């Protein structure tokens, strides 16, 4: 963590606004949430103000266990975007959380060649800047 604070973080950062602020602030507390509609029960990720199925604004925030499985992945060897082009290769994945939604993320703390679809994973929080924490996943211990 200390090393990350010394080097300026050069990868793209998310734009945080009033619609998504609670979700990003939860990540800073190392908590992962998805949303569930209080009217029709539909679950959704990424966070939005309204339910897509019934347009209700009544939202329940569901705390996630942080556990899931790799649904699919790719080991990226070529990316021109500054920040990423210095970190090649890296693993992109969709993780299917135990709560039933898939989220795009990176797999870390494992060799790219060891990644398998179906592999159990757990969330690891990276405090990349004082304002932003990212949820990444590593093989479940």
């Amino acid at each position, binding site marked *: 963590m200390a090393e990350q604070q010394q080097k300026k973080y050069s*990868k*793209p*950062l*998310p*734009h*945080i606004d009033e*619609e*998504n602020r609670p979700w990003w602030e939860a990540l800073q507390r190392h908590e992962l949430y*998805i949303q569930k509609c209080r009217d029709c029960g*539909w*679950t*959704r*990720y*990424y966070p*939005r103000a309204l339910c*897509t199925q019934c347009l209700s604004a009544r939202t329940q925030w569901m705390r996630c266990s942080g556990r899931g499985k790799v*649904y*699919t*992945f*790719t*080991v*990226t*060897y*070529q*990316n*021109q*975007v500054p*920040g*990423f082009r210095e*970190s090649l290769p*890296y693993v*992109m*994945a*969709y993780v299917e959380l135990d709560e*039933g*939604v*898939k*989220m*795009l*993320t*990176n797999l870390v703390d494992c060799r*790219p060649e060891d990644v398998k*679809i*179906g592999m159990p994973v757990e969330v690891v929080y990276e405090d*990349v800047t004082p304002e*932003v924490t*990212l949820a*990444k996943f590593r093989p479940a211990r």
Partner: protein
Amino acid sequence: MSLSRKAAVVGAYEHPTRFAPDKSMFQIMAESIRGALQDAGLTIKDVDGLCTTGIGMSGMGIVGFCDYMNLTPNFVDSTSIGGSSFVAHTAHAAAAIAAGLCSVCVVVYGSTAASSRFAIGTGGAGGGSDPCDQYEIPYGPTTVGSYAMVAQRHMHEYGTTSEQLAEIAVTMRLHASMNAAAKYRDPITIEDVLASRIISSPLHLLDCCIISDGGGALVITSAERARDLKKKPVYILGTGETVRHVADGHRDFLEIAAAQSGRLAFERAGVAHKDIDLAMIYDSFTITVMATLENLGFCKRGEGGAFVRGGRLRFDGELPCNTDGGGLSSNHPGMRGIFLVIEAAKQLRGECGARQVRDCNLALVHGTGGALGTRHSGATLILSNQ
């Protein structure tokens, strides 16, 4: 109230360039329009409708192009849904003509991606400012990576192999060898594809489309007017379009937009899969073709691997596919939807020489725009020369 056979493609022209550092995008587009109008036997003065996209970031690009061409059309459409846009534009032009909004509509595309050194697939995906992007860009998604994740899942669920995907690339290259304008024409083998470096696993370099400069244009008019013109009309029988995306985190990755747009097009055209003589399938990557053929219903989901083996997609095979050489070998300046319609029109008119499909009377065109594994569009057309 059906659109079927109300409109026809009467002009189709692919700009011969694949690298044009001396030309602007607009010049390529203007030259493409000239070529398509000559093909149709019409003039710029006949044109009262215009469809295009891919110009700048403002959303007003089509207005700038009208300025450049000094056009004041009665109908404009800059639907911007990625590479499939021009397939959708063809459908929209047909609808506009059928509704009496215009009578001669041009669809045009041009790009200098190669000479501008624009990294189409590996420059990072997502516009950056949409809500959905905020949960993706921090992780380094690429366009090729998005398609690669679909391929990876396809292999996991169905046992699809890299060899099966590679056969698609080999067939596209065979077709390109018969197309004088194609960028890459030397034959390749399955071994060549597998030996090419991995860009984003499991996709190799030769599983990915090329980067070229290029352009093209179509001229579309009413079926009635088409019958007075010099070439065999290419009637628009059926159309369909839609999108797919992350679906709140609930998406089945192996269902793509083609499942819906294809069903709409077939229903509206009133034809069956076995009637199709040619399939022009957007080939940004080999996986795009395989997933599209499955989702359109040419084979069952999961059977795409077996379906593409044994030369079925060859110009002289059971389901000729991308006889121009596709985006994998001929032409891909970033968005190649227009080339699908152009080649379909030429095949339906019998103009393709060495790569001509025998008895080619009914063609399906399917464009995919965006990133298959994150969010994309699909637009399908069914075209006939009868």
